[in-house]
């Protein structure tokens, strides 16, 4: 007796596979451990798009090169009247005409990467303008974006987010998805901090107040320490006059940890330098005893303690009125390193967890109500055949859910809308078939013949109609982001699974009723 054809086996396999894939969503302990991913709009969380200011990375490279150039000229005793970075990424040098030759030598030996733009003689002086070749700047930009991505990934890993999604988009954008993050402010702070740590000496030979009036001495700059008055919770900005030259940077850091000051019971961040950094730090402290050394992070002064004695051993502490969280986050960004260029948040979508839960509840509610109405209507309209279509519909939803879990696609609120829409449209294929069957029965065919012709005639139409929806869904998937992509996914899954259920599964049920049970009449 031929009871199991290949069709039966396929349907059975697919059903079993679908059920297996849905189980982990109900109980995560079960194999294959693939739950349906909920989008940020459903579980709450944060979506950020950052733009890396790669232009700034080029500028700081040029700045560094001009510094090196300055040092080289000094070493070779070549006089210069000015070395400046101009127009963002050009270096302008003024030297006396008679040093031109030795300058060219240095350029040829140590600064091969620089491209000469113009050489203008001007009363005994030569103005030379140089920049980096385009190939080089493109490389710097690319590297900056890559490094920024890596640094941010590092920071988020240390911050501790379950299943973050961090990826590049285009040349200089970074997309970040942080599901379930509640402390969005902290997360943003950690991600966005450039975290350039610098140690600079205070300029104690000049007066801060005079400098504040606009009389900043050359080679110095004003930076502020930002304090919060605990009584009024108002911000106070304390100005410092600092020497521009950076003595030591965070590039030499090996570790940063939160510790608690035993005296004041306040958290601080202790940092450790590598060997070279430790040597530098020792020399700086040795040469500047009794002077104040400012610890500057992203151009904000954190503290400016007086150096009491030479500090060896390569560790320092950053104090400031930190809360434990602030100290913890500062340690993270210091450990993960500085961003090679500042980043700017260009898109942010934050959904609170309670809103997400609301959305799920409302989405499921409309799904259930819509589903029940459609199921009831089909039974009312097509009787037993309607019930068969309902079985297909039910299976359809299970297949979509399984598909979501199996492909690890993300279910979003528009995705739920997609499922709801599929419920409405999934019966379409069966309606087409049933209407054909009715037509055939009306001209007097037997139920079996009517079912055969009905399926046969309707199949091509159904395929045509669904392919076009699939085209729209695929285009949506291609261009969509986040929630919209989620909609495209469920719609595509819905179209494919409704083809399967309406053409194969319902057919099997009809065949079973008409062939095995030898039903003579058809309730349709």
């Amino acid at each position, binding site marked *: 007796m031929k009871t199991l054809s290949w069709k039966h086996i396929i349907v059975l396999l697919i059903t079993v596979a679908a059920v297996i894939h849905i189980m982990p969503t109900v109980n995560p302990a079960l194999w294959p451990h693939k739950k349906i991913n909920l989008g940020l*709009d459903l579980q709450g969380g944060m979506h950020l*798009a950052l733009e890396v200011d790669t232009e700034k990375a080029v500028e700081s490279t040029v700045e560094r090169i001009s510094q090196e150039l300055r040092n080289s000229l000094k070493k070779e005793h070549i006089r210069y009247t000015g070395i400046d970075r101009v127009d963002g990424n050009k270096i302008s040098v003024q030297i006396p005409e008679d040093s031109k030759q030795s300058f060219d030598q240095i350029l040829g030996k140590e600064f091969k990467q620089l491209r000469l733009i113009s050489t203008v003689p001007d009363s005994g002086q030569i103005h030379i303008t140089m920049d980096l070749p385009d190939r080089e700047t493109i490389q710097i930009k690319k590297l900056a974006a890559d490094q920024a991505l890596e640094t941010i990934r590092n920071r988020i890993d240390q911050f501790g987010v379950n299943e973050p999604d961090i990826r590049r988009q285009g040349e200089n954008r970074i997309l970040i998805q942080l599901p379930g993050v509640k402390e*969005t*402010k*902290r997360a*943003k*702070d950690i991600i*966005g901090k450039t975290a350039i740590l610098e140690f600079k000496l205070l300029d104690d030979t000049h007066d801060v107040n005079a400098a504040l009036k606009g009389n900043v001495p050359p080679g110095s700059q004003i930076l502020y320490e930002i304090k919060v008055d605990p009584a009024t919770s108002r911000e106070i900005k304390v100005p410092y006059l600092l020497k521009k030259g950076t003595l030591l940077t965070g590039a030499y850091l090996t570790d940063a940890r939160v510790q608690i000051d035993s005296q004041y019971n306040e958290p601080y961040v202790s940092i450790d330098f590598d060997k070279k950094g430790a040597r530098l730090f020792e020399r700086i402290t040795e040469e500047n005893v009794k002077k104040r050394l400012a610890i500057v992070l992203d151009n904000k002064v954190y503290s400016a303690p007086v150096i009491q004695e030479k500090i060896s051993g390569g560790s320092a502490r950053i104090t400031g009125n930190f809360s434990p969280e602030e100290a913890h986050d500062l340690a993270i960004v210091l450990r993960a390193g500085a961003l090679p260029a500042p980043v*700017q*948040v*260009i*898109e*942010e*979508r*934050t959904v*609170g967890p*309670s*809103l997400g839960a609301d*959305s799920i509840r409302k*989405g499921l*509610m*409309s799904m259930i*109500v*819509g589903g029940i*109405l*459609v199921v009831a*209507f089909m039974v*009312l*309209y097509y009787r037993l055949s309607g019930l068969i279509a309902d079985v297909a519909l039910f299976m359809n939803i299970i297949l979509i859910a399984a598909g979501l879990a199996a492909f690890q696609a993300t279910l979003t*609120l528009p995705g739920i*809308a997609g499922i*709801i*829409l599929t*419920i*409405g*449209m999934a*019966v*379409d294929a069966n*309606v*087409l078939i049933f*209407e054909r069957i*009715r*037509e055939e029965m009306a001209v007097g065919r037997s139920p079996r013949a009517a079912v055969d012709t009905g399926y046969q005639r309707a199949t091509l*139409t159904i395929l*045509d*109609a669904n392919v*076009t*929806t699939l*085209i*729209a*869904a695929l*285009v*949506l998937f291609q*261009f*969509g*982001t986040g*929630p*919209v992509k989620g909609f*495209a996914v469920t*719609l595509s899954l819905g179209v494919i699974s409704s083809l399967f259920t309406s053409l194969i599964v319902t057919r099997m049920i009809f065949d079973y009723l008409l062939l095995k049970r030898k039903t003579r009449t058809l309730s349709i």
Partner: protein
Amino acid sequence: MQLIKPGIHINFIEKRKIAFTFSMLMILAGIVSLIIHQGPKYGIDFAGGTVIQIKLSTAATIGDIKSGLKSIGLEKSSVQSFGERNTNEFLIHTDITDTDENYSDTLQQALKSSTGTDVEIRRIEMVGPQVGKDLQEKALFAMFYALLFITIYISGRFELKWMLSGIMAAALMAAVYFFTLFKVSIPFLIGTALILSLVLFWFLELKYAMGAIVALIHDIIITVGIFSIFDKEFSLPIIAALLTIIGYSLNDTIIVFDRIRENMRKHNKLPLDTIINKSINETLSRTLLTSGTTIIVVLALFVLGGGIIHDFAFAMLVGVVIGTYSSIYVASPILLAWQNKEKK
């Protein structure tokens, strides 16, 4: 149970002039509304800006919220209540796209002191101006390519002119690519491409593709127009809805077209208008049933789905109704236009 008795004969084609007038009026109303509103009302996805959804513990007036916003320099924001009544939820729209790390704290504090109740910030969406422009471009291209691929499929399937439609599509894509190099505005570009395709369909006699695509453009223009009349915002999900409407409307059109082809083979003596009428009548109960079930679920979503999905459901609702109408009254009469063209 049967809605439509077999053998029913409604003369749809005869009423095509009325339908034509109706469609024209709808399209005109939409265009007038678009002109009055100075183009579509873009949400922050496309225009850039910030939307903040807040929930208050107890009732407060919009005025209270506005005064709180004013205290932190956001006096230009618009505030509207959101969601169901008595949930004390509000949406705040601002143009500002700089949400630094203290943004939500400052906002929460300011609103708390002005409304005198606890404020929960449920959602913040900020889209920078450049991102908005990118998304706008992407959305328009998505619509365009969806239309393009669908027409290739239709001309291929119904008239077996795969090559012809393929070449045409390739030419259009090349033209679009070529023009983007000159930084022409995207809506203008896509408008030109669509008109060009319609002209090509006409001369290449791809009548089914022509009928389908005219119906699609008709549906989209009317849905966009209705959105403009109701002063609703275009966001990314609405574009998703419009694309789905494209798929749905086509679904309907194809099923009628399929029947027309079948009937043309069966009764090749009958005049085209009779065949069209017969085909529409034969598929009428299916059309109504499917539209019915779809409308039921979309209505459930519209009523129960909550504020965030509301406009999306509204777009779908309008689209399903217009899509069903257009497959009967717009797509098929276009086929008839060919017969008249050939007679001349």
